[in-house]
C-alpha cells in the first residue's frame, strides 16, 4: 500500500545470509518457545475442528459412546424447519449487517482521522461499546429495547398519546415482533464495530499525504478523491475486514440473541446458527446433530473465504504489490 516507496519490505529477522537462521541449539530453543502456542493451536482449534467432522456423522449424547449415524444428521438438518430458519437468519444478518457495519466504520474513520476539535473524543466514544462485556451490553439493550420500560420507546412516545408515537403509530415492538426484533439485533451489532473502525482509522492514516495534496492541486472534488483515491487504496483492507466481519457475524449474534431476544419472538425470528448449535448441543444434548450444524457453519465460512479470495485475487491483477 505504500505509494512508490523504494524500500522493499524489510527482510525477515533471520538476516539475508542465513536462511535457516541460528545454530541447532538456538533452533531447539526457538522450537520450545513456539511449542505452547502450537499445542494450543492444535488442541484448541485444529483438533476440535477435526472432532467436529467426526462427530457430525454420529449420534452422541455425552452419556453413551458416539454411534455411527452416516448422513442421518445431515438429512435431518435439511428437513429441520428450525435449522432452515436459523440458516436463513444467519445469512440475512450477514448480508445486511456486515456491509452496514463496515460502511459505518469506514464513514467514521474518514470523518475522524484528522485532528479536529472533538475528533479524539469521538474516536474514543465510537470504540466504547466494543469494550463493554458482551453480556453487560446485552443486558443494557434488553432494557433499552423493552417496549414499556425501555428509554428508546419512551423517547419515541414523546408527544404522542395512549402509548403511540407523535405520528399516531405504535412504537416498534422490538422484542415481540419478528421484523422489529431482527432490526433490533442488527442495530445492537452496529454499535460494536469498534475493531473494524480502529483498523480503518490506521489504514486511512497510513495513506500517503502528498497524494492527497496532489489531488488538491488538481482540484479534485471530495467525491473524486474518495472514488479515485481513498476507496481503491483502502479496498484491500476493506475486503479483509468485510471477510473477518462476515465470519465474526456467525458468532457475535449469539449473545444478543441469547440474552436480548432469546431466539424469539416466535417462530424463531432471531435464532441464528450459533444459537441453534448451542441449544441443540447443550440444551437438547444432541451433540452429533449440533456438530453437523457446526460443519455447515464452517462450510459457510469457507465459502465466504473463497469468495473473498477470488475478489482479492482479481483486484491484485489491477494492483500489483
Amino acid at each position, binding site marked *: 500500500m505504500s*505509494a*512508490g516507496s523504494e524500500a522493499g519490505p524489510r527482510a525477515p529477522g533471520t538476516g539475508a545470509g542465513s536462511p535457516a537462521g541460528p545454530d541447532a541449539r538456538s533452533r531447539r530453543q526457538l522450537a520450545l518457545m513456539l511449542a505452547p502456542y502450537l499445542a494450543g493451536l492444535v488442541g484448541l482449534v485444529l483438533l476440535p475442528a477435526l472432532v467436529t467432522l467426526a462427530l457430525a456423522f454420529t449420534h452422541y449424547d455425552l452419556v453413551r459412546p458416539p454411534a455411527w449415524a452416516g448422513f442421518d444428521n445431515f438429512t435431518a438438518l435439511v428437513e429441520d424447519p428450525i435449522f432452515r430458519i436459523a440458516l436463513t437468519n444467519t445469512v440475512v444478518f450477514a448480508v445486511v449487517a456486515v456491509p452496514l457495519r463496515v460502511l459505518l466504520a469506514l464513514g467514521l474513520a474518514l470523518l475522524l482521522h484528522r485532528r479536529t476539535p472533538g475528533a479524539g473524543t469521538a474516536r474514543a466514544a465510537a470504540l466504547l461499546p466494543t469494550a463493554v462485556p458482551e453480556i453487560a451490553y446485552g443486558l443494557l439493550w434488553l432494557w433499552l429495547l423493552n417496549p414499556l420500560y425501555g428509554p428508546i420507546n419512551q423517547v419515541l412516545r414523546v408527544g404522542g398519546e395512549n402509548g403511540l408515537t407523535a405520528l399516531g403509530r405504535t412504537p416498534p415492538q422490538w422484542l415481540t415482533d419478528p421484523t422489529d426484533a431482527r432490526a433490533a439485533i442488527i442495530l445492537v451489532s452496529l454499535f460494536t464495530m469498534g475493531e473494524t473502525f480502529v483498523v480503518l482509522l490506521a489504514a486511512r492514516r497510513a495513506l500517503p499525504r502528498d497524494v492527497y*495534496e496532489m*489531488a*488538491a492541486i*488538481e*482540484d*479534485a*472534488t471530495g467525491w473524486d478523491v474518495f472514488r479515485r483515491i481513498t476507496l481503491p487504496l483502502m479496498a484491500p483492507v476493506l475486503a479483509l475486514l468485510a471477510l473477518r466481519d462476515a465470519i465474526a457475524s456467525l458468532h457475535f449474534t449469539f449473545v444478543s440473541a441469547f440474552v436480548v431476544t432469546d431466539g424469539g419472538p416466535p417462530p424463531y425470528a432471531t435464532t441464528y446458527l450459533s444459537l441453534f448449535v448451542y441449544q441443540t448441543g447443550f440444551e437438547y444434548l444432541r451433540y452429533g446433530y449440533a456438530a453437523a450444524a457446526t460443519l455447515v457453519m464452517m462450510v459457510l465460512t469457507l465459502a465466504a473465504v473463497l469468495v473473498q479470495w477470488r475478489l482479492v485475487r482479481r483486484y491484485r491483477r*489491477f494492483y500489483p504489490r
Partner: protein
Amino acid sequence: MSEAGLVLDGVSAAYRTETVLHEVDLAVARGELLVVLGPSGAGKSTVLRVAAGLEPVTAGRVRIAGRDVTDQRPGLRNVSMVFQSYALFPHLTVAENIAFGLEVRDTPHRVARERARAAAETVGCAGLLDRRPGQLSGGERQRVALARALVREPDVFLLDEPLSNLDLALRVEMRAELRALHDRLGATMVHVTHDQTEALVLADRIAVLRDGRIEQVGTPEEIWRTPATVFVARFVGSPAMNLLPAGGPLQPAGDPPALPVEAQIGFRPEAVNLDTGHGAPAIVDRIEVVGEDAYVYLTLEGGKPVVARVPTTRRPDRGAAVRVGVRWTDTHVFDATSGRRLAP
C-alpha cells in the same frame, strides 16, 4: 524584469505556532527557472506549499500570472507540483496518473489520454504508459511525475527536491534533462533543492533561503562571485569559503580596500596559494585527495583553520610548514557582526 509568473509579496507562514517564513518577497519572471536553495529546515518547501495553496499564509499576498490567488484553493491556482516522493497514485497506471488532473476536471477521456501520451513523450516515458508506479524505477517515476505536472500546461511548475531520491549518476542526467525541458517549454519553474551544485547548474536565478528569510537572490554567477552574506558565501561552494578576521594573521597581497574596524575576510579554497613562499605561516593538518584535486587543511598561527585546494601533484606533506598566500582581488569582505557584504 519581464512579466511576473509568480510573486510572493511579504509572505509569512507558520507551522503550528512557529513562524517558518518571515515576510518573504520573491518574484519569478515568466519563463524563468528559479531555484530556491537552502539547508534543511530553512522553509524551502514551505515556499512551494504556500505558492500551491497547500499551506495558508499568515500575512502577505501570492500572485500567479498577474492574478491574486492568496484566497484561492489549490485547485484553482493553475499550478502543478512535483513532490519529493513523486506522490504517484499507486493504484493507477502511468497513463491514468498523468491524465488524472485532466479527468477530474472533466476533460473528455479520449482527449485526456491523447494529451497524457503527448506529455509522456515529451519527458521520454511513453513506453511506460500501461505500467504501475510499483513497477517503475526511481528515474522512471520521476519522469512520470514530470509528465503529470506538464500535461495541464500550468502557469507555474513547482518542483520540491525532485532529484533528491535519485542516485548520483541519475541525478546528474535528470538535472540536464530538466534544464533542457525547461528551455524547450519556456515554462515558469520554481525548483527547491539543498544541493548547491544542482542550483548552480540548473538555475536562471537562485534564491538562497535561511531560517525562513531570503538571504540573496541572484544569478548563479552573482551568488558565486558576490555572495551577499557570510551565510551565502559559506553555503555555496565546497569545501566552504575560508573566513578570517580582517586584522588577523593572514594579510592578502595587493591593495587593501578601506576596511572598517570589525570586518571579516573570506576567500575560496581555490584562491589560496601555497607556493608563493611568503604569506602567513601554517602547519598542514591533513590532506584529502579527490582525484586531480587535493584539499589541504591547515592551521594558521593562533589556531585559525584554512582550507586550500591545490593540484594533487603539488600537495605538501602532512605536518609540513607552509606559507598561505591570498590576493585581495580574490577576497570578499564582510561585516563581522551583521555578516553582510562590504566589499568589493
